[in-house]
């Protein structure tokens, strides 16, 4: 066969494939199957690009003769993991699109659309937290911004600085924000003076200004730690573990050992400061409540939980204040801080010229533990705002796939917001869509199709449709705070060591909340069923009486009517009202901490259509 003939046949054979189906449709009609196929094909092209990315990496490795060994393996594994995640996302997307295209009637579409809506709301969650992600993934800058840049930033930050503050509606919280902002400024001024004073000493005659080398080293050590404590301590309560995590300090344990004295001193300072913010009565009441709780836990078999509670008690006092600190800090403040930090760096250079060993020691510590950039500040503030918002006076509800509830009851623990693969960075988790209000039983094991954005939606914790599906866990934001659980409950984190039960699968880290701290909210029609399940799992009468909350049948019916054909909606106003009025009232009446004022309950300020879904899923 000559080549021309061959080409002709090839073209003829491939014609039906090439011709878009749309052309076969009557004019004006939409050929959804064709559109779906096209989108899936385009998606495949995107996926192939990821494969090329991995190939590129291997080419680069070859070029540098680095195609084996630990270094190569470590990075190759990362590339592989990204590609596999892409594959998982592709698979989910293709299935979803096919399902939408195949839907034959409105009911079927409602099924799929329910999923899509969930996907959208998750997407919104991701985009809302995009700034956080951006800041989280930003690497610390190698050099401090020039004065000119700092000044320019300070001048242009008017809108940004008020972004968080303006969302606070609670006047008491607002005054705390401003008060703490003022405190930050004072500490900042003090830090500036300390630096100036040390600068004078170090640039002068060393033997006159310091008794001996030890004294000089001691002062440098204090100054270095002060850099961290001004940044972390004032903004977030440096004594609070979260500050360390938020500031992403590497070699944390090492730092705490090396700077043990300074660390403990700061811990005391912070504790005193936080207690000082409260009236003696309030302190006593809170301390009593915490002690009582500890007493209750005395005979608890779960020693680990007790230990964790005790730890959390120690970190409690600065919780809400710390969040408000961060919110109150303005960009010109941290611009000043960065200026001070640059001065500190300069001082270290001076020391290096005069005393090489000490200078090198200080430089190493500075680089290793104690330097920050503006992204650190922005990130902490952003997260603090989230925390304040999510743990205010509202009711936090965790919507769960009803089919999983029995297992949660059996385990006695509700997994927190997220479950994720060991070794994955927070930013990677976010990209994989794992950091929302994820059903705790959707495991992500990494390196596979499971590890994908789509999977958790398919697992179906999303929007319930029938009355019996409306089963969820709830608790007051306040109570989370008092138990030091706010972050664990609603924010993703990697604090596996803080999960009370430690009952997580190998490779899975997760936050957990003991069921005794939660209300189990079920529809009236399901009450007997859940009483039975609770009894079977040894929950006592007291728990069932206090913690099993029933949604009256009337409410369920109204919600069903409101939803129409698609069933009860995630943004059901009827249920929303139930959560925010009835459930909230009940939770407050049962709370031991109802007299405490916490941060804020600023509402979500984002795209129309999403607030409501989240409103009843997560917070008030």
């Amino acid at each position, binding site marked *: 066969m000559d080549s021309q003939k061959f080409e002709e046949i090839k073209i003829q054979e491939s014609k039906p494939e090439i011709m878009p189906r749309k052309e076969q449709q009557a004019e004006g009609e939409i050929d959804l199957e064709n559109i779906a196929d096209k989108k899936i094909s385009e998606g495949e092209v995107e996926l192939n690009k990821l494969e090329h990315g991995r190939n590129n990496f291997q080419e680069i490795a070859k070029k540098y003769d680095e195609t084996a060994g630990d270094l190569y393996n470590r*990075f190759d594994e990362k590339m592989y993991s990204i590609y596999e995640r892409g594959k998982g996302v592709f698979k989910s997307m293709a299935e979803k699109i096919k399902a*939408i295209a195949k839907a034959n009637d409105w009911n079927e579409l409602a099924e799929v659309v329910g999923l899509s809506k969930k996907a959208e709301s998750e997407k919104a969650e991701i985009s809302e937290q995009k700034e956080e992600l951006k800041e989280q993934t930003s690497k610390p800058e190698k050099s401090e911004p020039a004065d000119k840049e700092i000044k320019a930033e300070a001048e242009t930050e008017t809108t940004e600085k008020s972004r968080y503050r303006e969302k606070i509606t609670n006047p008491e919280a607002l005054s705390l924000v401003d008060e703490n902002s003022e405190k930050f400024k004072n500490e900042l001024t003090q830090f500036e003076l300390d630096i100036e004073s040390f600068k004078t000493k170090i640039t002068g005659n060393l033997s006159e200004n310091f008794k001996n080398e030890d004294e000089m080293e001691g002062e440098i050590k204090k100054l270095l730690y002060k850099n961290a404590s001004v940044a972390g301590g004032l903004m977030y309560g440096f004594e609070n573990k979260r500050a360390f995590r938020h500031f992403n300090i590497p070699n944390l344990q090492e730092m705490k050992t090396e700077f043990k004295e300074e660390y403990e001193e700061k811990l005391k300072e912070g504790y005193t400061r936080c207690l000082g913010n409260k009236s003696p009565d309030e302190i006593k009441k809170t301390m009593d409540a915490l002690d009582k709780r500890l007493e209750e836990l005395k005979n608890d078999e779960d020693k680990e939980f007790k230990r964790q509670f005790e730890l959390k008690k120690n970190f409690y006092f600065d919780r809400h204040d710390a969040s408000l600190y961060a919110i109150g800090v303005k960009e010109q403040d941290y611009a000043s801080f960065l200026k001070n930090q640059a001065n500190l760096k300069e001082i270290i250079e001076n020391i290096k010229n005069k005393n090489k060993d000490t200078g090198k020691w200080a430089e190493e510590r500075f680089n290793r533990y104690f330097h920050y950039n503006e992204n650190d500040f922005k990130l902490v503030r952003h997260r603090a705002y989230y925390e304040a918002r999510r743990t205010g006076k509202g009711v936090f509800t965790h919507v769960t796939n009803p089919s999983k509830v029995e297992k949660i009851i059996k385990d006695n623990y509700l997994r927190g917001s997220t479950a994720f693969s060991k070794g994955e960075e927070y930013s990677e988790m976010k990209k994989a869509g794992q950091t929302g209000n994820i059903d705790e039983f959707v495991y992500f094991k990494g390196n596979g199709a499971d590890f994908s954005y789509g999977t958790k939606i398919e697992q179906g914790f999303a929007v319930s449709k029938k009355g019996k599906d409306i089963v969820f866990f709830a608790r007051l934001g306040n109570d989370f705070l008092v138990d030091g659980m706010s972050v664990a409950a609603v924010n993703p984190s990697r604090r596996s060591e803080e999960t009370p039960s430690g009952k997580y699968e190998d490779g899975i880290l997760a936050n957990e909340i003991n069921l005794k701290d939660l209300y189990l909210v079920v529809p009236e029609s399901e009450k007997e069923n859940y009483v039975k399940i609770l009894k079977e799992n040894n929950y006592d009468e007291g728990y069932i009486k206090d913690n099993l909350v029933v949604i009256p049948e009337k409410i369920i019916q109204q919600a069903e009517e409101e939803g129409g054909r698609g069933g009860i909606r995630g943004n059901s106003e009827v249920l929303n009202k139930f959560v925010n009025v009835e459930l909230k009232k009940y939770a407050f009446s049962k709370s031991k901490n109802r007299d405490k004022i916490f941060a804020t309950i600023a509402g979500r300020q984002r795209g129309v259509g999403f607030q409501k879904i989240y409103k009843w899923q997560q917070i008030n």
Partner: protein
Amino acid sequence: MNNEFKIEKQKYIDSAAQEYSEIMDELKKEQNQVILDFLSEIDKKKLEEIRGKIKGIIENGQPKI
């Protein structure tokens, strides 16, 4: 199947595709970052090797060829 229904479905298909595309963009960025980190690690490694060689020369003198 009426057109209104199809339009609705198309809207959701577009949205799913868009969502996918955004995630893939993020993954691509992530890959680029991995490559950059890899290169930076190689740099460090090479530098260490050179330092080691220099140290060796200082301590032991020029190697005899």
